[in-house]
């Protein structure tokens, strides 16, 4: 049994005697803060986001929710120590939902409650870094929103036609809408990230594999949970995109490998659109370490 497992068991207040190392400290609670920015300001439903996109069109937030998995703090000696997630409406043992929309303003249809933190417990230690993955673990991704406990019970985060979940649902309303090739306009420009090209097994009734995982691993070698936050920057995410128009397929990017809007979006996410693998593991041009709000 390794040390982290030992501490994990301690955290659940069970089998203390089974640990092979003498333990002197109980696990401590630890939260990881998240922030969503646009033009350097907190991005919320209630206030304009300012100009976004390569075309710099004034926009408002329409939706902003995403799941994270595999949250790990990195100790000074380089050890990766999993944060044991506390079960709540926002997280189970394996995945947490961050939610920056409150259903107000242009976010109509969303949920009033918001969540900007991942909470858990971890053995006391000197932690200097953070690793996590934007996504839902494969074993949970293909479950039903109507049978799973929170936070996997949100219908809006379900992706029924892909038999999975949207890992990230980031949507903005550009002023005047987005002009489509058929001449009509869409009020909203969408970014939906999730696994694509999935296949099920009719014998078992389960969805078993996907061509593109589209999970985004993030690594911050320097991260102090007391002072720092994980910052998702809409300005950076959309910097290569024209949000005032759509050149075909889904409006914006819904992870379609041949969607013309997905090239720039995936590049800014740091994912290969073709393989669904990270371009530079641990690094995303749209996610950075910032000050804890």
């Amino acid at each position, binding site marked *: 049994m390794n040390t982290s497992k030992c501490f994990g068991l301690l955290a659940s207040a069970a089998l203390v005697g089974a640990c092979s190392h003498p333990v002197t400290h109980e696990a401590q609670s630890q939260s990881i803060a998240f922030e969503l920015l646009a033009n350097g300001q907190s991005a919320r439903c209630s206030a304009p986001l300012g100009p976004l996109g390569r075309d710099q069109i004034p926009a408002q937030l329409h939706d902003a929710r995403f799941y994270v998995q595999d949250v790990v703090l990195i100790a000074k000696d380089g050890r990766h120590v999993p944060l044991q997630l506390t079960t709540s409406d926002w997280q189970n043992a394996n995945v947490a939902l961050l939610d920056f929309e409150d259903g107000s303003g242009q976010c109509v249809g969303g949920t009033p409650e918001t969540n900007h933190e991942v909470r858990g417990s971890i053995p006391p230690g000197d932690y200097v870094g953070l690793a996590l993955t934007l996504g839902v673990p494969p074993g949970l991704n293909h479950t039903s*929103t109507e049978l799973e406990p929170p936070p996997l019970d949100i219908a809006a985060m*379900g992706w029924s*036609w892909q038999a999975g979940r949207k890992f990230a649902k980031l949507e903005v309303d550009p002023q005047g809408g987005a002009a489509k090739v058929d001449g009509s306009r869409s009020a909203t420009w969408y970014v939906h990230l999730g696994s694509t090209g999935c296949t099920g*097994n*009719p*014998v078992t009734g389960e969805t078993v594999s996907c061509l593109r995982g589209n999970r985004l691993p993030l690594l911050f070698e320097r991260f102090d949970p007391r002072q720092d936050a994980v910052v998702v920057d809409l300005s950076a995410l959309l910097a290569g995109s024209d949000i005032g128009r759509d050149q075909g397929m889904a409006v914006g990017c819904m992870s*379609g490998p041949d969607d013309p809007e997905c090239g720039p979006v995936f590049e800014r996410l740091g994912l290969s659109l073709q393989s669904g693998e990270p371009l530079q593991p641990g690094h995303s041009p749209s996610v950075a370490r910032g000050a804890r709000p």
Partner: protein
Amino acid sequence: MKLGRICCGLAGLLLSLSGMAVEGWDWQLPSHVPEPRVPQDNPMSAAKVELGRHLFYDPRLSGNGTQSCATCHVQEQAFSDGKVLSTGSTGETTHRNAPGLANVAWHATYNWANPAIVTLERQMEVPLFGDDPVEMGITDGNRAQVLQRLRDEPLYPPLFTAAFPEQDEPLSMGSVIKAIAAFERSLIAVDSRYDRYLQGQGGLTASELRGKDLFFSEKAECHHCHGSFNFNDQVVHARSRQVEMPFHNTGLYNLNGEGAYPFPNRGVFELSGEPRDMGAFRAPSLRNVALTAPYFHDGSAATLREVLGFYSQGGRNVEHGPRSGDGRLNPYKSGLIVRVGFSEQEIGDLLAFLESLTDESLLRKSAHSDPWQGD
């Protein structure tokens, strides 16, 4: 609806439910049809099927209370709707043609082209919760209200309890989905004139027999994709160990001369993005096919005669408009689709055979009909 009638209806229903076995289901299948696979967490029961029937026909299950599953799946039309495309509860148009539901229990995958969806329970989340387009229009915002509507209907609480006796809170959206799936699995059509012919219980006409022989011949090649007992090529049953999931490009379109189909109807390509999946759709079951017009994933063929003309030509040449292009030359077209050149008589014989696949009992069975009618 008057209170007295509600009470009478409820008492009668409970009385009839009390006579049903809680578990188990008699499929009543002829010997040439295997029992379907049923998910372990959703066993069949008479109570569950009866609950599912009530929900299937209940418009209170849509977000705005205007539409039920039966709006697009009409019993008299073998649970299709006769429309090219359907209209959702908020007025949006579906991307694809509403398929019939007969024998859906045996389908390996659902929707027109979706290898990810392999159970009815998962399929149902698309019409219930989908937002592109909105069909039933259930959301996080109105889900509780929809469930409260069901709770307020006196028939439902006892039906849910009877269908899900093991659950502390049987009335949930998860139970709604399971019950409707059970009802859909009960929609079985294996008693056509053709089935009776197979069992030696009746004959086919000379034209129907010629059509049958042509259908199963290497000339017409129909049987390659429609050759199973269910007249398709994706079948899963209780004893399946391995199931193939073929999808086919039949040469309906060829937008750019490079094989493209129109978005968002590019078949499995919409999910996979793999060029080989361009225009690849599931071969639908041909049972009751005479009743499920219009045809193809986009309802673009009005009649069965038009469909047979299409296969006779080995695809479709769209000469005008934004969808122009010679589908017969689609580079992703299945090798099984070749120019057959049917004679008029052959088309007539094939039509006669396809019409013999209609199971009239499906269209009339009261166990499949709207239970809210006559209240």
